[in-house]
């Protein structure tokens, strides 16, 4: 997973997350939107055949209360916790 920041201001961040697709990006976006201080979060991917920018670009806009990069880190932690709690709940039922 290679990260490359394409745009960065105090309350806005665009970051390329190489090697990922909708499977992870959509989960991550969903986790970001659950965050209280996030105003907007979205990602954009182009098909592989289209040439040019084919890696997903995640854009985060905060309400100013938090650094976007920190929010991204928190979202990654959230996704990780979601995955482990899901697995634990599943294994408990199985």
């Amino acid at each position: 997973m290679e990260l490359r920041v394409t745009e960065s201001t105090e309350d806005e961040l665009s970051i390329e997350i190489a090697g990922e697709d909708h499977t992870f990006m959509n989960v991550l976006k969903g986790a970001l939107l659950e965050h209280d201080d996030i105003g907007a979060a979205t990602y954009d991917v182009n098909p592989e055949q289209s040439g040019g920018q084919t890696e997903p670009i995640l854009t985060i806009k905060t309400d100013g209360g938090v650094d976007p990069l920190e929010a991204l880190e928190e979202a990654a932690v959230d996704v990780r916790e979601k995955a482990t709690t899901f697995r634990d709940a599943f294994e408990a039922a199985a």
Partner: protein
Amino acid sequence: MTEEYDVEFVERTDREARFLVRGVTPAFANGIRRAMLADVPTMAIDTVRFVENSSVMFDEQLALRLGLVPLTTPPVGEFVEDDTVTLSIDVEGPATAYSGDLVSSDDLVQPADDNVPIIDLKDDQRLEAEADTVLERGKGHAKHQGAVAAGYRHLQRVEVVDDVPEFEDEQSQIVRGVIEDDGELIPTSEFDHDLSNRYPGKEIELEDVPNAFVFHVETDGSFPVEEIVTRAADTIEARATELEEAVQL
């Protein structure tokens, strides 16, 4: 953030399962589904060396057929991505070569189904080949796709609103999936997917239960259903951890 997930099995066999998950967001449910299809590595034949092939099909056609045979996938940690296991096949006509004729060099990697016909051999025809397997993800080739027809639907809640008016014909109301009636989970196949069979003469209202998804997963035999779900969750966890570390740098 601590979420409460609740998992409940509705139907379960070795290769097929239907289970309800409560408390997941649609995004996460879809992530799990996509990870099951494309991100869980399975073993499959990738390179075939033909010693003799006098059958009616070309080498590359047979190599494709061999590749599509599901193989049991070893437990996590036994193999890493570049390890190979060699299987050999030697069948002389008149006979049919089956997937069960593949002889593996490793007990952990065996054909999951023994009676898939590979090629029909006539008199004097012979197939002798060695095949190398690789551990790969479904993203790269469909033969590495462990989950088959993995999907989910909302859990539906049924509510009896009223009786059908006296002079009105009863209409069938088709629904597929699993319904919830007073906390009881009922697969719609129990009443032929028609609510008018279960609630004759009643007017019914259906609604999706928010954040409750009924997954239906089948596997090709590479591993049991439970395994593919937990491994899919693990791939998402691994990527989240990777991102977390990458952001910290």
